[in-house]
């Protein structure tokens, strides 16, 4: 196995990671920026070659390119120590030694179980957008979106632009909460313009509040969904359902490294430092608060990881605080309604990998008990999906992460492990 050394390794090339990489590299540090996707941008700016991107995304991508940071398509497989990452660069695995790690691992969708959610044709809200950006043809397809928070707007708009018939958009939060949030958040002209544009693009869709999916039906794949709007049920025939109960910080690598969490997010201080020396975190993985805050936090994390002594953190302290306040508003406004939890039916699949249904779990159990007795979260995804659902449904702490990440072939992992303690190649 080859060994590489970098001053700073940034994991995740979304807004926070790009910003951290550009900042650290422009301060003269050698920076490696890792992401699983072939093109930088993260989920929010996921794009195909030649696709148009918002101006601030183009600007940031240019900054990274000019900074000298090295971007690589790669997956972290293991972390033998906080300063050593075992990284799979598309089949070739290197041990990457670094003085500083910046975690910018973003967020994942919170998929809550309902009957039929594992049918082909049912995805997350962001998941459907990712399929669309990946080339899914939706012209004339009938689509229902069910979710919460501002993500619904751009997703509905991009589906409508691509010719889909977005029949209904369901927001689980009540209208009163969303209206209050809207009048405050939309004072930001940027957000106001976006929201109006997106909403106008998806003008044909029926927008509902206090609404959620009761079940998805179909034989081989999705044929219809039953929705509940203000407590009344209705059935809609459709081809695709994008349903997710919002976003949650993605923290597997942080947990493997031993970083403390605060709720579901990586705990950080004003310089974006985590509880583990040498590891910083920025963006949605430290709490969902949008791309503007992520870029700012990335800049702070990149600068402190590069050793600026906290100068950038103090300069941006006020703006950082505003970002966190916005995140708190988001969390309050789009807090999951208790009905989403109580309405979860026993027959709904909770853990796809291990075939555990909701009814097999006693909510009074501890996470460890449930795991030992039902094997929930012990399958191939290692609780990436159902762990998030269990936290929402039962209040369990995110599960402990045990190596390896990303399920490498046994012999390959064994070979890499052998090399961990061997002398450094130069």
């Amino acid at each position, binding site marked *: 196995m080859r060994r590489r050394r970098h001053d700073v390794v940034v994991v995740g090339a979304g807004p926070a990671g790009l910003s951290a990489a550009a900042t650290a590299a422009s301060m003269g540090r050698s920076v490696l920026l890792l992401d699983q996707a072939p093109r930088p941008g993260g989920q929010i700016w996921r794009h195909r070659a030649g696709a148009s991107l918002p101006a601030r995304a183009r600007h940031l991508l240019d900054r990274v390119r000019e900074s000298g940071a090295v971007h690589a398509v790669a997956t972290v497989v293991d972390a033998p120590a906080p300063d050593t990452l075992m990284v799979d660069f598309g089949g070739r695995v290197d041990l990457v030694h670094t003085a500083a790690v910046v975690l910018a691992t973003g967020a994942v969708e919170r998929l809550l179980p309902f009957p039929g959610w594992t049918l082909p044709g049912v995805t997350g809200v962001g998941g459907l957008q990712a399929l669309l950006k990946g080339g899914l043809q939706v012209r004339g397809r009938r689509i229902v979106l069910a979710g919460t928070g501002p993500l619904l707007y751009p997703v509905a708009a991009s589906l409508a632009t691509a010719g889909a018939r977005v029949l209904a958009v369901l927001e689980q939060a009540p209208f009163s909460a969303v209206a209050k949030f809207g009048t405050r958040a939309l004072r930001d002209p940027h957000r106001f313009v976006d929201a109006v544009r997106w909403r106008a693009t998806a003008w044909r869709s029926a927008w509902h509040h206090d609404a959620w999916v009761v079940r998805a039906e179909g034989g081989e794949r999705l044929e219809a969904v039953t929705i509940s709007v203000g407590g009344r049920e209705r059935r809609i025939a459709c081809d695709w359902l994008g349903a997710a109960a919002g976003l949650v910080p993605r923290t597997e690598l942080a947990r493997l490294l031993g970083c403390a969490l605060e709720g579901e997010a990586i705990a950080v201080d004003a310089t974006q430092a985590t509880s583990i020396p040498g590891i910083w975190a920025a963006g949605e993985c430290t709490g969902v608060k949008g791309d503007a805050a992520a870029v700012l936090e990335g800049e702070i994390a990149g600068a402190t990881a590069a050793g600026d002594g906290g100068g950038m953190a103090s300069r941006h302290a006020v703006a950082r605080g505003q970002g966190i306040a916005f995140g708190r508003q988001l969390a309050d406004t789009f807090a999951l309604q208790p009905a989403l939890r109580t309405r979860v039916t026993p027959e709904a699949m909770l853990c796809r990998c291990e075939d555990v249904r909701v009814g097999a779990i006693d909510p009074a159990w*501890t996470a460890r008990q449930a795991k030992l007795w039902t094997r929930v979260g012990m*399958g191939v995804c290692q609780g990436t999906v159902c762990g998030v659902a269990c936290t929402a449904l039962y209040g369990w702490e995110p599960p402990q992460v045990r190596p390896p990440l990303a399920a490498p072939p046994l012999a390959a992992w*064994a070979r890499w492990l052998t090399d961990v303690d061997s002398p450094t190649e130069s």
Partner: protein
Amino acid sequence: MTHPDVLVIGAGMVGAWTALGLAERGLRVLVVDGGVPGGGSTGAAMGHLVVMDDSPAQLALCAHAMMRWRTAAPELPPSAEYDPAGTLWLACSDDELAEAHRKQEVYAVAGVSTEVLDAVALGQAEPLVAPGLAGGLRVPGDAICYPPAIVRTLLERAIALGAIVINQAVRAIRPGGAQLTDGTWLEAGVVVVAAGPQSGMLVPDLPVIPRRGHLVITERAPRRIHHQLVELGYLHSAHTLGGASVAFNVQPRVTGQLLVGSSRELVGFAPGLNRELLAMMLARASAIVPALAGMRVIRSWTGFRPATPDALPLIGAWPALERTWIATGHEGLGITLAPATADLIVAGILGEPPPVPSAAFAPDRPMPTLAAA
């Protein structure tokens, strides 16, 4: 429950079988454990029910235990994943094949039937095993199970018979009593310490220490391995590393996943992985089952076996503390030996003759010092 007849400390496989055995005899039983029942050594274990013959005493205890398991199996729930797959001991050399023949004779005396396979028969029985091995010994009576689910079932049965299980850690013990971490003292007729590797922290001078092991599990796949596979060189494994060792051990789960072991090392209760040892363990496994190389690993973990200096369990009264019984020190055989251990403890407490000779397991027997282990 005030003043139970028996206080069982530890709700692992040994504690659960013991609690049920005592409750079935009409005794009032209180079980205490600071963690989830079956969540300690039991939860980290492979769940291989296997007859071993390091000594005649151990062989007799294993044979009795397997008889108890086979009797219990039809009443276990599906979640117990009880699978009478049998064990296949692999002989890598002619010397080891000779060992297979020796083992066959010894097992026969204890009433355990086996079958020696030559290289051709081994290839037919387990096509995924690398060619070039000398053969093997099949023990069809051995089995595979999922231990935590069994603990849950056993405790539910004990509770139905009046036993009580409380989720509190024990800080100290004295004759006929135990102190919880909140300071309360529980009083009982007798105390059974079945706290696995942690028993040594409760009973001064008890010769039991944790011996760490690693396990790895693969993703699901069609089932292509049919027995629990272990190497006959298990006990004299040449692959040592500063007192640590690895040995080939692969178990097929009902899901088609493979559990891959094993390693042994004395590192106290140190958490985390020994990646160098883990690498040796995985390399050994894929040398014997080459198809493992391409299977994806989804998780690794470690657990702590309760080890003793002479590799035999500690089952019986502890003379230094009145009314105190010990049921631990089984190292890697705790799951297998749990029902037989419970039988010895129940017989001991009730003053009945043991179902199998128990003198070899007396916790106060002369033993080499732990440092020499």
